């Protein structure tokens, strides 16, 4: 395994373009090193991106949104007050990934590109409308997070392409987002079900909404029916029940060592209601502030 430390995105992409066999980019390493040790994936070329300028920075973009460097750890996000104020759902989703120790290393980009259907940060990013900058042999492009994921462990990145930044849109007024997951313990488990809701209010009525589900399909799902169930409502019980039904209906889960199809389908609806309430309350608070 060749370990390389490029000092620019161009250098990184050039290395990747030339590399033979399996190539992996190393940010936090909390997935890659587990797969290496368990002989699941032993990269031939490992490109450590942590020496590239700007990868450790959280910066406010001029449209009011946020640019998250690809080596920013979950711990650094949780300690960034202004980011937490704008997007508590995205930050709490990333914060749930692994232990305190894992939080010291794991990154949004790593969690995203590992492309686990149960990744915690991804539903929250999808709900928030996050986009990512990608650079490769033939130039750079920017796509929505949900368009990056194509299946378990698979992304739409072409050979030698890499994500260079994560962009969270501006929060905008009267907005709130939230994420919860179901795990049998209180920590340290992989999500059996994950649900994120991001919404904005017009008075007490929900104006816009995005609902995303994790661990209930080969990729994270953006569930339009679920959003429609609450748009235009004041999140009354009828709207919540419709939300739950829509969330469960969108599920296409599997039976595995962590949960059954029936369980995941039911709990997706339960979480959707709980998370929507939290997002709604946060939006109300933001409206008031």
């Amino acid at each position, binding site marked *: 395994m060749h370990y390389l430390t490029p000092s620019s995105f161009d250098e990184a992409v050039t290395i990747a373009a030339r590399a033979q066999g399996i190539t992996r980019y190393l940010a936090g*390493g909390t997935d890659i090193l587990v797969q290496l040790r368990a002989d699941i994936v032993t990269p031939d070329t490992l490109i450590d991106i942590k020496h590239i300028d700007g990868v450790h920075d959280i910066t406010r973009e001029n449209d009011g949104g946020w640019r998250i460097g690809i080596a920013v750890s979950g711990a650094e996000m949780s300690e960034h007050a202004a980011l937490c104020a704008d997007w508590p759902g995205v930050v709490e989703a990333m914060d749930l990934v692994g232990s305190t120790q894992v939080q010291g290393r794991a990154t949004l980009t790593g969690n995203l590109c590992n492309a686990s259907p149960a990744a915690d940060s991804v539903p929250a990013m999808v709900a928030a409308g996050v986009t990512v900058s990608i650079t490769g042999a033939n130039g750079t492009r920017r796509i929505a997070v949900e368009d990056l994921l194509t299946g378990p462990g698979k992304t739409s990145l072409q050979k030698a392409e890499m994500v260079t930044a994560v962009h969270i849109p501006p929060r905008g007024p009267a907005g709130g987002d939230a994420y919860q997951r179901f795990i049998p313990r209180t920590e340290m488990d992989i999500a059996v079900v994950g649900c994120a809701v991001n919404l904005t209010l017009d008075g007490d009525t929900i104006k816009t909404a995005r609902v995303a589900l994790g661990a209930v399909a080969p990729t994270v799902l953006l569930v339009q029916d679920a959003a429609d169930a609450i748009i235009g409502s004041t999140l009354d019980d009828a709207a919540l029940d419709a939300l739950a039904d829509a969330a469960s209906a969108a599920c296409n889960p599997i039976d595995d060592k962590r949960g059954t199809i029936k369980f995941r389908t039911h709990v997706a609806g339960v979480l959707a209601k709980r998370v929507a309430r939290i997002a709604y309350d946060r939006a109300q608070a933001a409206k008031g502030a």
Partner: protein
Amino acid sequence: MSKIHVTTSVNGDAMEFLCDPRETLLDVLRDRLNLTGAKEGCGTGDCGACSVTLDGRLVCSCLVLGAEAEGKEIGTIEGLADGEALHPLQQKFIEYAALQCGICTPGILVATKALLEKNPDPTETEVRYWLAGNLCRCTGYDKIIRAVMDTAADMRADAKETS
């Protein structure tokens, strides 16, 4: 496979070593730098027995490559005490029987030292969630949590006195 030359600092001492690209920081600490205080309980970042600090940040040394230690400042259990003077957490863990077999103790001490530096007055819940990645199978955690909370109180009292 040619080895990588790494220059780093462990507990304030400059150190150099050669390691295979696949060797983790934990392998290096234990097999090359003879610091066997960090323990391997799982090798997959699930048990926390290998906890160290990397530039002050609490991490699992089994989830960091030796090569990634280049130019970093690493803190291990061996660096907690100041000569003979134990860190207050080390002293309290002995007094409170907050350990039995002791395999998880180095990781928990490194983790709780990092906690108290960040949050000198944690609640029980905050201590428990901070330590969720440090598995202990002997104690049921009770005496560990009490030792951490009481050490925090002592350190706050001392800080008030000296300030």
